[in-house]
């Protein structure tokens, strides 16, 4: 039973950074922008959160730093793609390379240090209940935040005017411009939100999951988050589900020995990447369906001639 609870705990901890990064990118893509730099924003979030927590001793300041740092990276992306109309694919790649390099540069003084345990929800008695206690009432605060965020995004898109405007801009930016919405401004908002989320996802890795700083510690999670958005068909609820599925695959590799499976560790380590490819294939097969769900203006530059 303990193993079972441990596995579920492990899944949720492995899934949460993906939830953050995917939900942020989902909002960005809904607005019609493809930011491939999630990996770069995550790693910058990871190191900023870690460094600030070490320097100040405050997890809250660390988390805030990761949010700001992720958003700053996204702002850079916005300047290039929204104001200077650079190709979004190339700029996203640049953001990732730059992020990985810069994080390594900042992080060289921080390897080997540790921030200690991240605070968890602790309700007397209830959090000590078997199974539901640790799983539902005893997780870290950020994990609850990730779930709240997904619910908030669902509400935002379905119930608010701003959400409707973002969906409209992602669908047809020319029409949105004609009826008077500032396309670029809204896209900046979406990008900043996406960057902040990716930064948080990164901080979750370095402050909660490990919690130490290792170079390249995101290990492709930013890219997996991008694939999750496709998997989710741009629906927040499905992104959450997808993140937990991937969390499950990651945990499988840690617990495989527990199950008596004896495979090369590298093969198990390949699983999340192979699973991403399989998922992409399964989801993208039906072109018509993809067209119905994907924002029609995705990755197109917007330039108003007036």
């Amino acid at each position: 039973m303990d193993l079972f609870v441990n596995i579920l705990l492990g899944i949720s901890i492995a899934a949460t950074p993906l939830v953050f990064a995917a939900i942020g990118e989902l909002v960005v893509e809904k607005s019609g922008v493809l930011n491939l730099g999630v990996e770069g924003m995550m790693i910058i979030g990871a190191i900023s959160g870690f460094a600030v927590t070490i320097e100040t001793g405050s997890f809250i300041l660390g988390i805030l730093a990761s949010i700001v740092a992720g958003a700053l990276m996204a702002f850079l992306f916005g300047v290039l793609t929204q104001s200077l109309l650079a190709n979004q694919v190339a700029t996203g790649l640049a953001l990732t390379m730059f992020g990985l390099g810069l994080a390594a540069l900042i992080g060289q003084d921080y390897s080997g240090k540790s921030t200690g345990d991240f605070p968890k929800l602790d309700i007397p008695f209830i959090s000590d209940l078997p199974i539901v206690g640790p799983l539902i009432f005893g997780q870290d605060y950020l994990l609850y935040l990730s779930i709240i965020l997904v619910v908030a995004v669902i509400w935002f898109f379905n119930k608010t005017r701003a959400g409707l405007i973002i969906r409209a801009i992602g669908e047809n930016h020319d029409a949105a411009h004609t009826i008077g919405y500032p396309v670029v401004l809204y896209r900046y908002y979406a990008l900043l939100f996406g960057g902040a989320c990716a930064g948080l996802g990164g901080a979750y890795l370095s402050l909660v999951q490990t919690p130490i700083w290792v170079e390249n510690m995101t290990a492709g999670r930013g890219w997996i988050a991008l694939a999750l958005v496709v998997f989710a068909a741009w629906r927040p609820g499905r992104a959450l589900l997808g993140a937990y599925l991937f969390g499950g695959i990651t945990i499988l590799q840690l617990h495989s020995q527990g199950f008596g499976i004896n495979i090369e560790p590298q093969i198990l380590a390949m699983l999340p990447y192979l699973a991403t490819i399989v998922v992409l294939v399964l989801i993208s097969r039906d072109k018509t369906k993809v067209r119905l769900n994907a924002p029609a203006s995705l990755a197109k530059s917007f330039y108003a001639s007036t």
Partner: protein
Amino acid sequence: MLKLERRKEPSKFMLYVTPFVAVVLTMLAGLLLFLLLGKAPVQAITLIYFTPLTSIFSLTELAVKATPLILIAIGLSFGFRAGIWNIGAEGQFIMGAVCGGAVALALYEVQGIWVLPLMCVAGIIGGMLWAAIPAYLRIRFNANEILVSLMLVYVATLLLSILVHGVLRDPDGHNFPESRLFHDSATLPILIENTRAHLGIIVTLVVVVIAWVFVQRHIIGFQIKALGDAPRAAKFAGFSENRIIWLCFLTSGALAGLAGLFEAAGPVGQLVPALPVGYGFTAIIVAFLGRLNPIGIFLGGLLMALTYIGGEGAQIAMSLPSATTSVFQGMLLFFLLATDILINFRFRWISKKPDSLEPAPVSLQQAE
């Protein structure tokens, strides 16, 4: 107020000038970065960009570093022009090295002039096969080639690790995860004694010329350009998108595979887990820096190799962190993409109050 204005057609002048502008901007930003790091900025920039040019040995090192970058970037440039994004060249590089290296190790007891060509063919095939996966999945299942090709980099890295821990491990190597050293007829001949300048450099030059001819004069280059500029017009012209996707992926896979084999059979001389050092990603920057044009890529590859060599020198001389080089490369791509806007747009200064500006020309006229 500064306003963007679309040009009627792309500016050729800006197309060639902006890479130089981007390099200069990167140097300036580098000065700032070193100031922030508390290192002597001018010394660092000199070490990175100029010192390597002052000795014969470092010039040959430059060529050795530039070889894989140029080879890979030329392959990638085809796809990038067509809007097909193979960003997994690093994985194809690894698979080329693995396949070619496996041939070398299998023929460990055999000497012969045909060993090296055989390794090259194996390396090319290895890279092509690895690149064929995203191409097939994109064509058959519409799966995003960016994500698939990138995921395969991680898979290839792990595969290399499995192999050098397992079947390809040096039997006399005390369980160290690396292969045997390739013997003489399985290593690339050296061009200049006491350097690492190898035959691959010549091959790369030939590839540059052939690629240039195809891009400029052949219908294949035309098809790729047309598909990238206007996919519907390319279809209208009778060009098959699927064929172009195959072509771009297989070409870039082949060249990345060859580059990987050159790396294993050249400077490294064996298979090690640390064989991939990011050339596949840096080549993306090289491709853009070279304007996706073979000649431009040749120059871009040399420049990027310079920052590698110079970066290493600066790391030793000034104890700079090794990540500095990648930060520089990221910045360079940023500046390049930012200045790209000048190709299709121009900035115009539009005065909010035109009246206030008018007196000036009037007074000039009076002066005359």
